[in-house]
């Protein structure tokens, strides 16, 4: 089966090279059959790499430890789902998986657009397959997951070697969310290849209207959604699995996934100005290039070992290849951009500071600044070593101090931006729009202050949260009320139909509301508390209004791990509210220990109990307890963002002709004009 995988990979390589060649040649010769053949070859490459993936999964499921990658990432007792997850759990497999996802997107895009954008598509095929060629080559020549495990004997000869059992999947990765977290993240990162490829194709074919943006809007949103969800799941994983009581530590690996998300968010916003006003064309090109570059860079960062991280990725020699590839991509893209500047003239200029355009500009500025700050902090050890010869690192509080004002600024814009008019907003319209939200926000601040919240940035965040929520609710309310009076629907029907007829706008509001909830969750961090002690059975530990008592310490064995578990009773204000089971596990296959924290979560706060281990004499358990307010709102916010994105992805419900005329001049309504334009 390894031979089959190897063969599929080699075939994918050949087919990919053919696909690029046929597309480029087809464009040169104007030969439609060659172009179609190149596109079909791209779909064929997807089939080949799928074969390689299936073959690798088969090797895992059949415990074929003669294969080095399988022996390093699995063991006989590993549960079924983790064996599947192990396919992408290590270096070699994850790169193959990355390449596979790229071909998934490519195949879908090729099929979706097989009769559309005939001038642009051959370039799209060439760009996507060129990206795929890099990953296929890596899997085939550098990080091949199908290699056999061999021993170097004392006389220097090599000998095939099949261990009796594998050394197991890293136990920290053995967590149910982790089966879906990396694929989400990869699908998100790789997904930005689609808008990137269309942007390149638009420039190469000189089709620089907003066709490429309209065609890729959904693809960009899907990538953004999956990446964001991946980041959230990563936070959730860190929270329940790592045992230090938080969900985000500004670790390089986390930063690597955040950077493309920040730029992707900027891109999602700024394309709206191009669609509406024909502005910022060059900037959008820069953003899409940088977003895709950051997606590649994030992969490079986590695979190359250039930055030390708590995430134990294999350090290897692949960094050089990645860097060369990234430099190639960036140089090619910017060369093309400079060459096509003449086609990217803006059609409008900014007219007023208080305008939607200006709001988008600040939005972009802050997202890019956030990305730059994260990049700078992450890469400082590398840069400082180049310049000074010493590695300088920044501690997490630095990120918090810098990102705090940026985040608050963005939260403010979330409320203000959507209410600003295009071109310019009059003083009166500003007053009308912001009087009520402003009043609510101030009243809310007074209440928060009265109940004793003095932490300044938490206070600002919560005030802004009230402000933004109010603006969003007013938008829905006003829209639904207007619709009710014009159509006679009841309020709920009007609300639903309003949303379904302009999914992008109202889905966007739902996303914004989710972001507000995220910030509410983040602001809870200002009030985190923790306490730690060595406890014997019967001992108690107190924190805030809680008392915890250790009732029992017990040991259990399973095939995959041995566990020691504490049984802890939780008392709130003297009343028993829960029994919690924090646990430590030891995985013999990988000789690694992990902890399973116990969390009691509600809308107000989490009580988070971590079993850190036994004292040296084995009589007491070291227990650490965290009280983390508002954490639940982070997860709820993430879910609301996901729901909002799904709404925005829905096609608009068709409007009747008379309404369409009325709506035509109102903002954000989508016109299906890209197809006509291309065929014209």
């Amino acid at each position, binding site marked *: 089966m390894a031979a089959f995988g190897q063969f599929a990979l080699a075939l994918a390589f050949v087919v990919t090279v053919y696909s690029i060649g046929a597309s480029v040649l087809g464009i040169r010769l104007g030969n439609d059959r060659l172009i179609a053949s190149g596109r079909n070859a791209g779909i064929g490459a997807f089939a080949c790499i799928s074969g390689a993936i299936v073959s690798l999964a088969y090797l895992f499921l059949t415990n074929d430890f003669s294969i080095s990658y399988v022996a390093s990432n699995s063991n006989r007792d590993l549960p079924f789902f983790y064996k599947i997850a192990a396919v992408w759990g290590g270096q070699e497999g994850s790169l193959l998986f990355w390449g596979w996802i790229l071909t998934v997107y490519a195949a879908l895009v090729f099929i979706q657009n097989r009769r559309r954008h005939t001038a642009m598509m051959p370039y799209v095929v060439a760009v996507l397959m060129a990206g795929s060629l890099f990953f296929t080559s890596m899997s085939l020549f550098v990080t091949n997951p199908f290699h056999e495990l061999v*021993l*170097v004997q004392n006389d220097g000869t090599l000998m095939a070697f099949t261990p009796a059992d594998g050394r197991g999947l890293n136990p920290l990765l053995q967590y149910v969310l982790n089966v879906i977290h990396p694929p989400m993240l990869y699908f998100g990162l790789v997904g930005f290849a689609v808008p990137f490829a269309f942007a390149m194709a638009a420039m190469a074919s000189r089709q620089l209207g907003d066709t490429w943006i309209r065609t890729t809007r959904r693809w960009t949103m899907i990538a953004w959604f999956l990446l964001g969800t991946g980041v959230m799941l990563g936070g959730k994983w860190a929270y329940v699995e790592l045992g230090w009581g938080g969900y985000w530590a500004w670790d390089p690996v986390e930063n690597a996934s955040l950077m493309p998300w920040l730029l992707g968010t900027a891109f999602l916003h700024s394309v709206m100005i191009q669609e509406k006003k024909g502005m910022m064309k060059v900037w959008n090109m820069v953003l899409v290039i940088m977003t895709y570059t950051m997606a590649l860079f994030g992969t490079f960062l986590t695979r190359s070992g250039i930055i*030390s991280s708590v995430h134990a990725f294999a350090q290897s020699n692949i960094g050089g290849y990645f860097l060369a590839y990234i430099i190639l991509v960036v140089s090619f893209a910017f060369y093309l951009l400079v060459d096509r500047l003449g086609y990217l003239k803006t059609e409008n200029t900014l007219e007023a*500071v208080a305008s939607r355009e200006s709001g988008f500009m600040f939005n972009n500025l802050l997202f890019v600044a956030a990305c730059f700050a994260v990049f700078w902090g992450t890469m400082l050890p590398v840069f400082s070593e180049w310049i000074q010869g010493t590695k300088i690192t920044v501690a997490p509080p630095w990120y918090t101090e810098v990102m705090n*004002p940026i985040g608050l600024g963005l939260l403010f814009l979330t409320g203000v931006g959507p209410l600003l008019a295009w071109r310019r907003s009059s003083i009166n319209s500003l007053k009308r729009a912001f009087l009520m939200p402003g009043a609510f926000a101030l009243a809310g601040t007074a209440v928060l202050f009265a109940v004793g919240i003095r932490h300044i940035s938490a206070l600002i965040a919560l005030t802004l949260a009230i402000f933004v929520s109010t603006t969003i609710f007013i938008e829905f309310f006003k829209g639904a009320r207007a619709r009710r009076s014009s159509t006679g629907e009841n309020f709920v029907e009007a609300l639903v139909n309003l949303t379904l007829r302009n999914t992008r706008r109202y889905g966007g509001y739902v996303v914004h509301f989710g972001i507000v909830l995220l910030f509410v969750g983040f602001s809870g961090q200002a009030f985190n508390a923790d306490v730690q002690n060595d406890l014997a059975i019967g001992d108690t530990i107190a924190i805030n209004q809680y008392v915890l008592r250790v009732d029992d310490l017990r040991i259990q064995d399973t095939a995959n791990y041995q566990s020691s578990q504490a049984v802890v009773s939780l008392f709130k204000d003297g009343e028993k509210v829960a029994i919690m089971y924090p646990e430590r596990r030891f995985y013999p296959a990988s000789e690694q220990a992990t902890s399973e924290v116990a969390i009691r979560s509600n809308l107000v706060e989490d009580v988070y109990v971590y079993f850190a281990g036994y004292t040296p004499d084995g009589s007491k358990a070291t227990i650490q307890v965290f009280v983390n307010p508002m954490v639940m709102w982070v997860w709820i916010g993430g879910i609301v963002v996901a729901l909002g994105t799904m709404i925005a992805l829905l096609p608009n419900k068709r409007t009747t002709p008379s309404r369409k005329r009325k709506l035509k001049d109102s903002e954000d309504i989508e016109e299906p004009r890209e197809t006509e334009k291309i065929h014209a």
Partner: protein
Amino acid sequence: MKRRQLKFFVGPVIVILALAWIGYSAFDANKAYYQTVSELYAMEAENALDGKRLKVAGDVVPGSIVRTDDSLNFLISQEDQTLAVQYVGKAALPDTFRDRAQAVVDGEYLGNGVFIATSMQAKCASKYEAEAEAGVLPTISDASVGIED
């Protein structure tokens, strides 16, 4: 650039300057020098350490981990040089901290090969590497010898 466009640059410039200032002023309190054990000793020899906050990386020496009532002591080594670490941090030890783990300790160097750490990160050396080092297994390489199925 037309003059009337100038006003649109005032806001962004203020924002950028303010953020740069925040980033700069928060930097000193949060920076740390990242070194391996031997780099630390090299810097000590040059008297270049004076009170700097440091992050030192090395492998935990097997059998050196000793718990006392108020701290945890262990040795980290790299290229035959060792550093005695006293961990006094509040946070619980990472799960990955054990013999032969790669540890990064964060704190202050007291001189004479003693380091006070207030926080620590650790990751595991892979099992085979560790065993190969300890002489349990011959060196393993996953270089290709061709595929035989």
